[in-house]
């Protein structure tokens, strides 16, 4: 279990996180929602060890393998699509297997034909998908995803949501999923956290224990949570 307790963080002379606490159970999908600039990315960065809280502490990260789909795509422009994946995977997986894995993920993301392209020759959504490939393919017990499906068209988004659910089923990893799309959160999350405006706390929390395959956006239980969620989000303005 990963536990954040009383996290505070100042950035750029402003109090960003003010007493943030929540837990992530093993194999749980936690969705973070909240206004732009409230500190969602900052939370992920601290979990990834790229930043330190000013106060408070994070427990349960030792020996946990983390993968991260950054908010920006952060690809190496001098490496081709497939080499961007080789780059992070080569210390993790040996070669014949690695190549197969890479091709599988590229095909999954509809990038199979672009293996030899350099990132700058990809469209915005294609970069985003490549960045997702990397995060999925990298072995992990905790997967951090920062608006993973932005820049993707609605049908693709939906199919990727299903794909994530399927992969989660297999791997049992914990996932922390930052999104602005309420539908995505409802379809994927076991726990939905709504952040307040800066200075930020968790101002609302919703649990959903419906199995993924049974979740439909039209479903009444989800519609109920949807309403509450929208209200919680709306209150911030």
């Amino acid at each position, binding site marked *: 279990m990963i536990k954040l307790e009383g996290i505070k963080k100042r950035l750029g002379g402003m109090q960003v996180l003010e007493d943030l606490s929540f837990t992530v159970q093993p194999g749980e999908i936690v969705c973070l929602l909240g206004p732009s600039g409230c500190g969602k990315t900052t939370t992920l960065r601290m979990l990834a060890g790229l930043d330190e809280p000013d106060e408070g502490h994070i427990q349960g990260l030792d020996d946990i393998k983390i993968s*991260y789909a950054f908010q920006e795509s952060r690809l190496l422009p001098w490496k081709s699509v497939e080499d961007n994946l080789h780059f992070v995977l080569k210390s993790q997986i040996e070669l014949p297997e690695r190549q197969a894995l890479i091709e599988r993920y590229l095909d999954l993301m509809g990038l199979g034909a672009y293996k030899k392209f350099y990132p*700058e020759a990809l469209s915005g959504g294609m970069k985003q998908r490549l960045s997702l490939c990397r995060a999925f393919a990298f072995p992990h017990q905790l997967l951090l995803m920062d608006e993973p499906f932005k820049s993707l068209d609605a049908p693709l988004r939906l199919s990727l949501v299903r794909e994530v659910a399927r992969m989660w089923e297999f791997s049992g990893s914990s996932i922390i999923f930052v999104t602005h799309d309420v539908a995505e959160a409802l379809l994927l999350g076991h726990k939905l956290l709504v952040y307040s405006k800066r200075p930020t706390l968790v101002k609302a929390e919703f649990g959903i224990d419906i199995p993924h395959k049974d979740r439909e956006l039209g479903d009444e239980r989800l519609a109920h949570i949807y309403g509450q969620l929208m209200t919680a989000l709306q209150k911030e303005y």
Partner: protein
Amino acid sequence: MINSTWLSKGLSLLSLIFFLGLWQVISGFYKPVIVPSPMETVQALGNLMAGGKLWEHAGNSIGRGLIGFSIALLIGTPVGLLMGLSKLIRQMFQPYVVTLQVVPVISWLLLAMIWFGFERVPIFVVVISTLPLVIINLVQGVQNVNPRLTEMAKTFKVERRALIVEVYFPQVLPYLFAAMSAGLGTTWKAVAMAEFLSAQRGIGAGMATARINLETPEVFAWTLLLVLMGLITDRALYIVNRRLTRWRNAV
């Protein structure tokens, strides 16, 4: 594309002709002992070639230059990377780099002759002259590496070696190329300078004799040879650079 290549070839030729013309005109105003004409210079070069001196001297100089510059790259690359990566190391080494840059050859000369022997002084001088260029450019390069990509690599637990070779290096490459471009030019000048002061053979030694004898056409001939060497290495570097940065064409 074809058009612009032809245009640029034409312009290059034009600029060469302009240069030769200017040289010819200037040489008209002065005696050959001050400014020999292009023809006289080429003749002097021909004489050197015919006398067999040319290849012997040039071979010496080229060898020394390449060895010296390779040493500077081999030392300068890791030192520059380390200085760029760590402020502590940078602060410790920076004064030495400045010292290398600023101290004139004359001040090293004797010690270099004593320690390395006469024939190796030019190599030493090349190292001393080009090393700071390599280090300074690499330090700037490393300091301007995109920290977001470094974070990415660290998050994915990429090994230090791969981080340096595959993340840092490509970003530092343009700085390294600037250093190499500046360094190769400096190499030929430094070799000639050092040979001028210490060696028996080599382009600089040939120049020294020609200079003392006021054989200006011969001095110009040696100079022309240096320029040709510079142009060749510059071109080679350009080709390598274009290869290594092919990915930029994607933009």
